[in-house]
């Protein structure tokens, strides 16, 4: 391949990478913006929160009302005593709920009920903006098990 053709091909590749990545990021921010906008339409939202202490005790706080725009951490702190550590760039890491602390391979994990069933939380709880009528579940579970056991 001549130098000119090689340079041309690499320029096309570089532009392709930039174009695809920029489009994906634009799509991500468009989706995130729409998600936050839809969750803050109503001034007050109602959510359900279940807390599974890992010993068979599950306590549900159904119909918990909070101001819209709040995070899962905010609403969890309304119904339970939460201790957490803030990690720069990553968000809040829950150390304990109601004095039950992470220990060994047991950690507090959060789940959300979706139309497809239980879905594991994808971000730190202080990064997730709660939506009206959503159902969350804090599960003190053995994280050494793969795949992670879901609440149901």
């Amino acid at each position, binding site marked *: *391949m001549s130098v000119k053709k090689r340079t041309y091909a690499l320029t096309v590749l570089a532009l392709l990478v930039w174009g695809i990545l920029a489009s994906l990021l634009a*799509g991500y921010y468009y989706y995130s913006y729409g998600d936050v906008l839809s969750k803050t339409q109503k001034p007050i939202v109602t959510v359900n929160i279940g807390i599974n202490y890992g010993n068979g005790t599950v306590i549900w706080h159904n119909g918990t009302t909070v101001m819209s725009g709040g995070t899962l951490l905010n609403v969890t702190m309304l119904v339970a005593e939460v201790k957490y550590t803030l990690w720069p760039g990553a968000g809040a890491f829950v150390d304990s709920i109601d004095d039950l602390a992470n220990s060994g391979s047991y950690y507090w994990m959060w789940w959300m009920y979706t139309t*497809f069933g239980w879905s594991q939380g994808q971000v730190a709880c202080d990064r997730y903006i709660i939506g009206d009528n959503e159902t969350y579940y804090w599960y003190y579970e053995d994280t050494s098990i793969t795949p992670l056991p879901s609440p149901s």
Partner: protein
Amino acid sequence: MFANSYLSFWGLAGLNMPFQMVGMGIIGLVGGLYGKTIKESDVVSGKNIVEVVILGAFLTLTYDIITNFGFAVQLSLVTGVSLWLAFVGVLITGAVFAFIHVTSNAFLFMIAMPLAKVMRQLTR
């Protein structure tokens, strides 16, 4: 691939492993073909480093798209949503990861050529 499948920080590859194998196969093939076009004396030239960075970024993105497609296939089978919708959803939700993956790999490829030259000299 099997070791990576079981020891990866991101967890078990599961049904995504065939897609990972295709992605890595493409990377190996392109890398092998590209290596034949480089003269030994030009390995650490600025031009070659730029080429490798661009090629590395492109191949990383290709790998991400292939493995995201694999995840979308599984998502589509499990949830029943259309494959196209699942694919777009997976690509969009994985955009930040893809960006970090591509840019970090581009940086690593920047030092790959000088490193390869040093390693070749050491093994001679």
